[in-house]
């Protein structure tokens, strides 16, 4: 972003961070940048803060959660297959991952001759970095406004107008890392793994983006904060349009996101039984750990995005609704467009009879973070459950599924969602919702027709194609 003279927060850093910056400048003598008159230099300072924030969030949030997720995966898989899982290191095996991490750190970094040393080192780094930057884009909490003033910026690294798109841009960069790792390993299985990953990533990125496009179309913004805000409606959790209005979108996103992070049933790039674990076969020690960390971090981010796009983000299931005489929307909201996905906190206010806004912001933030993390871990569990249940696909099945099924389906989905957008645009109160519903009934009827004809026709078409293909195949041989 270009820095404007009159804008004090050009990088859209959260407010608490600005306050921290001001505090540091005021209280620590050598760092009193606040006195500098030139706003551009202030802006530069803010940029530096932004970088610090990136690092803090990435490693502060990502590392612990990854460590936990590895353990969780092993426990869940053990549970699915009726085993015990790790149970020796620490109580219930809680310290197992830390022990594994220490082991990895001290392992020898093996390099075989014939490997391209630079690319071999660069591969894991390119794979690793973008995933961790992604954490800075996910809104873990919303901003809190009081009388039109933001009192708390929310636990959001950077709120960009192109946030949703930037997510996919960054996550696709890590594919290059995989390809490079596969190439530089000088091992044919690694190379096949890397190339499979490239093909798979390109193929599944399209339905992924198209599924999100439907959400973006309906919410009217690519800013992740705005998307979450758009899901706050009079029906509480039933206003989460991502899942209730466009389940097709959700399904496509779920499938493609699992493919995007290379997990079973789409883990062809690192299939142990056929490729000796693919592009990371030759890696050991710290470099292997980087792949390992990044994969789990990517899973975390993808689940976080599922929540943000389809499950109301950090909002509680009651946010926005009126239930039991309580309007479960915070009265703290001052500015439209800013988030106030509160429920328990406002209920607390109502019960205690205290003036609105007297609940400390950190309590509200804590509630939002809790909802977010809870939902994320539900989807992480879901992914692990799938891993314990489903077999792996063949490469041609994988590609065909994306290009011949998911992509046309997601185009159809976008078409239908645009009807939804006309019929039932996102609104904040029940009256206008009902009014829209009745007023735009013709659109609704057309939509229903499109739904029936579209989905029915598509399914018929696909089955017809499949039948023809089978016929042709058996005819030839």
């Amino acid at each position, binding site marked *: 972003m270009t*820095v*404007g003279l009159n804008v004090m927060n050009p990088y859209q850093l959260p407010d608490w961070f600005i306050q921290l910056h001001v505090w540091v400048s005021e209280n620590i003598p050598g760092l009193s940048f606040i006195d500098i008159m030139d706003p551009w230099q202030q802006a530069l300072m803010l940029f530096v803060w932004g970088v610090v924030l990136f690092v803090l969030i990435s490693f502060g949030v990502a590392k612990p959660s990854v460590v936990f997720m590895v353990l969780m995966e092993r426990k869940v898989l053990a549970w699915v297959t009726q085993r015990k899982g790790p149970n020796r290191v620490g109580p219930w095996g809680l310290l197992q991952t830390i022990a594994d991490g220490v082991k990895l750190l001290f392992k020898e970094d093996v390099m075989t001759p014939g490997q391209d040393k630079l690319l071999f080192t660069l591969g894991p780094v390119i794979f690793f970095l973008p995933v961790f930057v992604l954490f800075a884009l996910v809104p873990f909490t919303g901003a809190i406004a009081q009388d039109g003033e933001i009192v708390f910026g929310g636990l959001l690294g950077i709120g960009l*107008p192109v946030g949703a*798109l930037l997510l996919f*841009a960054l996550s*696709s960069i890590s594919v*290059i890392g995989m390809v490079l790792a596969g190439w530089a390993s000088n091992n044919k299985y690694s190379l096949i793994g890397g190339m499979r990953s490239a093909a798979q990533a390109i193929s599944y990125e399209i339905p992924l983006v198209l599924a999100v496009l439907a959400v973006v179309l309906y919410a009217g913004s690519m800013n992740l904060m705005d998307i979450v805000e758009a899901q706050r409606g009079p029906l509480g959790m039933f206003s989460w349009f991502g899942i209730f209005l466009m389940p097709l979108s959700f399904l496509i996103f779920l499938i493609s996101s699992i493919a995007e992070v290379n997990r079973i049933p789409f883990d062809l790039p690192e299939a142990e039984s056929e490729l000796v674990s693919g592009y990371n076969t030759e890696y050991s020690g710290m470099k292997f750990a980087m792949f390992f960390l990044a994969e789990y971090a990517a899973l975390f981010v993808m689940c976080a995005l599922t929540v943000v796009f389809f499950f109301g983000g950090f909002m509680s299931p009651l946010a926005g609704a009126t239930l039991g005489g309580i309007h479960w929307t915070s009265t703290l909201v001052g500015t439209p467009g800013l988030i106030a996905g509160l429920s328990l906190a406002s209920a607390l206010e109502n019960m205690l009879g205290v003036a609105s806004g007297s609940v400390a912001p950190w309590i509200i933030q804590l509630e939002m973070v809790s909802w977010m993390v809870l939902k994320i871990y539900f989807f992480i569990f879901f992914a692990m459950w799938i891993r314990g249940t489903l077999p792996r696909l063949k490469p041609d099945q994988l590609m065909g599924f994306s290009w011949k099924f998911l992509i046309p389906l997601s185009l159809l989905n976008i078409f239908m969602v645009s009807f939804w957008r006309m019929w039932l645009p996102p609104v904040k109160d029940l009256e206008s919702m009902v009014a829209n519903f009745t007023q735009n009934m013709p659109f609704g009827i057309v939509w229903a027709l499109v739904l029936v004809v579209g989905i029915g026709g598509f399914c018929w078409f696909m089955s017809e194609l499949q039948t023809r293909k*089978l*016929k042709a195949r058996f005819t030839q041989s």
Partner: protein
Amino acid sequence: MIVENILFWIFAPLAVTAALGVVFHRSLIYSALFLIVVFLSIAGVFVLNNADFLAVAQTIVYGVGLTIVILFGIMFTGDRPFDDRLASPGKRLAYLIVGAMLLAMLIPAAVYQYNIHPASEALIATYMTEGSTGLLGLALFTQYALPFEVASVLLLLAMVGAIILSKKQMVPTEKTSVKYALPSTTLGSTAEEIYEKAPFHGHLPKEQPASEAETNGAETQEMIGV
């Protein structure tokens, strides 16, 4: 302005250096990687010019999508270093002279002060708060609606062409054979004869008789219960 200038002087020389790397590096893989750097630095320059959507689109489409396909191609065919002997000293001198002349021609264009109207304050404010996406969309659906739609036709044709050029050439079956009677002296009168004798299709596999194929098909249909 300082931040912008600093960032510009990071991105721009990086783009130029990486572009030189694309041309001069002996390894194709490294050339492709330099190409990624070029695209990403240009995306950086886009960001400095308030074109956030363009920057992200550049990263997705060029920075990753396109170069992955290039890398794919290189990995399929193998990374052979360029043979420097291909260009003789005389040729290289000629290239150098032409390049230098082109560069000399470009210098006035580079230093010329173009009279481009600066954006209004309101526009800059919109860019900074809402980003350029909305304005871009509006332009694409009003002023540039026709080129936008024609671009979709262009991409459709390119896609059809790509499929055509990479599709396995099928030999027409007996049932659907070429009906045109060709002079029997040169080629033949039925599809099979044509495909056998014609020089341009000599390498294609011979199609099995249709009758057998049909029986197979019927059996299969029974087998899979269609």
